[in-house]
């Protein structure tokens, strides 16, 4: 059962994408977790989170982007230029961060040089950086503009009822993901961090109906756990350290595998592809557009929401307590200053609380730095071991 999720998480396309395209239906890519995929689902279009996985070279990414730029958008551009996203009929570029929002121009210009590499529907989705009432209004307008443009380009009508149904379906998917989250947080994790992350990533590239169905089956097949979530301060039964991974965007399950193979369980994460929180539900009682506005803008899980550090610190702390996290790997892609500098604050504050942190700067893309990262992760786990031994088993 896990194979379906692993396959979907490991490549640009998967069997569902192929079937979808073969049946003549449309797929629209999007770049940021602040974009509500429910809108496309309600239009009968498959929303697909654009990923940079399996990039093999960077000549196109480096041609259009300058040198001091994060490798994630460069990988997206590389794949776009190579025609790997030709199954998309549209793309939505969000203002996630400066480098990501410039994918708009870089992709358009690449499209001029590499014919056919740019989809017909190409939309710039502006997302505020704060949640004040006037910013909420601005975001709601952006959602309405997006809906209008989708309706116009695809000649569809996104009805309120359809939107409600899509919201309900996505909410159900989030509930199922939360069940996975509970399993991985268990004293004897019922699912590995790598598998849990594969499932979360799959949710962004599979049709939601199929994803929910597959996940329901998987959850039914997984062994049930007796006790509730593990409290901090206790060791895993398998002796592995309980790790949380946070920071820059990551959709590569190999990063999680690398961390777990070094002798740990990734029992929680806080990455924009990952699983958020129990409260991560769109309000069904509200008007759908208003509910989507509040949900997608208020979840200040990304440091692009300036000044909301405390909210994110509290979220991490909740995850740490719930999953009994013993150490945090704070990773960032080079030139990702938003996560990189926030990781500095997390390190300061969590180390003060006695939770060991490892700051790990890396490049996105094939894990070319595997050796260096493995060594640093192993050293970190050793450091945790020594600290625990020195404190008489209490970390």
């Amino acid at each position, binding site marked *: 059962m896990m194979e379906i999720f692993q396959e979907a998480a490991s490549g640009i396309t998967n069997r569902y994408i192929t079937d979808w395209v073969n049946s003549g239906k449309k797929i629209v890519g999007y770049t940021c977790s602040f974009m509500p995929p429910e809108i496309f689902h309600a239009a009968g279009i498959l929303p697909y989170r654009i990923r940079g996985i399996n990039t093999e070279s960077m000549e196109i990414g480096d*041609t*259009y*982007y*300058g*040198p*001091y*730029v*994060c490798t994630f*958008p460069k990988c997206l551009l590389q794949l776009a230029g190579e025609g790997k996203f030709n199954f998309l009929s549209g793309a939505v570029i969000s*203002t996630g*961060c*400066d*480098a990501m*929002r*410039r994918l*708009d*121009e*870089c992709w358009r*210009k690449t499209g001029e040089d590499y014919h056919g590499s740019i989809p017909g529907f190409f939309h*710039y989705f*502006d997302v*505020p*950086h*704060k949640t*004040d009432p*006037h*910013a909420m*209004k*601005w975001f709601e*307008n952006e959602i309405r503009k997006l809906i209008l443009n989708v309706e116009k380009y695809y000649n569809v009508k996104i009805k309120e009822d359809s939107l409600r149904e899509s919201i309900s379906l996505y909410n159900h998917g989030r509930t199922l993901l939360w069940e996975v989250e509970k399993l991985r947080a268990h004293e004897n994790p019922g699912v590995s961090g790598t598998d849990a992350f594969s499932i979360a990533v799959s949710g962004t590239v599979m049709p939601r109906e199929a994803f929910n169905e597959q996940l329901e089956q998987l959850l039914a097949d997984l062994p049930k756990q007796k006790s509730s979530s593990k409290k901090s301060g206790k060791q895993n039964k398998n002796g592995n350290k309980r790790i949380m991974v946070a920071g820059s965007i990551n959709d590569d399950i190999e990063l999680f595998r690398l961390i777990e193979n070094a002798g740990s369980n990734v029992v929680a994460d806080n990455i924009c592809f990952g699983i958020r929180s129990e409260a991560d539900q769109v309000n069904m009682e509200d008007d759908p557009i208003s509910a989507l506005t509040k949900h997608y803008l208020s979840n200040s899980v990304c*440091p*692009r929401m*300036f*000044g909301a*550090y*405390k909210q994110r610190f509290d979220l991490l702390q909740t995850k740490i307590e719930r999953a009994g996290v013993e150490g945090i790997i704070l990773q*960032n892609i*080079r*030139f990702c*200053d*938003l996560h*990189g*500098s*926030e*990781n*500095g*604050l997390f*390190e*300061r504050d969590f180390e003060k609380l006695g939770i060991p942190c490892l*700051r790990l700067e890396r490049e996105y893309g094939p894990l070319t730095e595997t050796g260096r990262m493995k060594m640093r992760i192993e050293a970190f786990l050793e450091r945790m071991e020594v600290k625990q031994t020195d404190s008489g088993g209490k970390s």
Partner: protein
Amino acid sequence: MRPEVYEYNFDWMLWRTLEAASKVGDGFDKEFKQMLPYIPYFSGIVEPFINLGDPGSAFFKMISEYLKNIVTAHEQGKKIVMTTFCFSPTIFYAMDIVPVTLEALTVLASVMWKRGATEYMDFCVELGFTETSCSSQRGCLGAYLAGMGEEIDMLVINTAGICDTNANAFSFAKTFLDKPFYSLNYPASLNDPEVNQYHRDDFKALIKFLEEQTGKKLDHDRLGKVLDEVAKQEAIVGEMEELQRLVPSPLPVTYNFLIYGGRFFFAGMPEYTVILEKMATVVRKNATQGRSGISSGREKLRAFMFYIDHYALNLNLWNWFDKREINHIGSILSRSFKDDSPYIKGMEDVAYNIDSTNLDTMIDSIAMINSRMPMVRSIRGPYDRPNMWLEESLALAKMYKADCLIYNGTPGCRNTWSNIKLIARDLEKAGYPTHIMYGDAFDDRVESWEATAARLDEFINVRGLL
């Protein structure tokens, strides 16, 4: 950070340096020349400024006063706000709040001190801030994070939606210093009715925040006076920038630095108006005589910096221009875009007006000014959209008869490094030889000024511009 750097506060040292510099020109010429060998690292900026006559000397005095205000703010019962260069300080002066403008103070340290602000930049990294972040904030910010400046009371920015690395620096400082924070946030387009309404709402919320922090209501009369002063200043600047279109340009090359530096430091302060009037007198005289503002009186080439300038020790960039008889005809920082500026013709969409009739019109005016500040105006949306970076660069290059265009920034500028190759290609297609500088405007260690100058010379020579 080296222990000795902790000996003196950053803002205090800057103030004392400028205080001394402002007095250098007060003596006889012989005294001035005798003094220069004793300030070898500093003479490269003191000499050209003093040689500018009244405007240069007055500018030193005014910056010195600005720094003194920071150092003595709390003694005077005033609040200090940490802010950014592209935020017009008008509202702060109207509310008697003292601004500490990070990038402006980093520039001062960079041009005056042998080591620039690099010790403080590195201190930010010691605290966990990324080394890849923009050096323009990191310089001054490091000093304040180290507690080597007057205590900051609040932070106010307007770069969310414009420049992540800038906004992120203040967001980091807000958490580190645990101080109140307000961020104006801008949509990607500039001039839609709904965007203008948003600008207005956001600015009203900012005023409320400032009132809460200071415990004082906004004084409408005072705001009106400050805005009227800004209007006077922009009229003088507009006249000078109109005369800059002449060939040869009558503006001395460092004048653009004085104009935008003055705007970032002193917009709305009457003393700045006096400096501008002195500058305008020189420019008018040169224009009447058909004389170039370049020291030699000759102009061989006109270069437009389509992003920012380079602030290596002793204002090397301006000296490089001056020695080669190249006129520096401005940068993204130079122009105000006020609606009655003569050069605004054809770019009315980016203009703002100043109307001090009542509170609503004043808030509209000040919100419009802030939304049209450098960067805020033109790099908020895709570079090739109407009113954005490409359109503005081409319009100004044409208007000011540029022979070539030069980009300079910092490696921390994620925003422009993400599309600089695209815009450079478009500018070349439009017929402008375009050079991309790879150094750091504030950190000489990234690429030494000598290497930067060699590449600039290479560009000029290879493209056959001189």
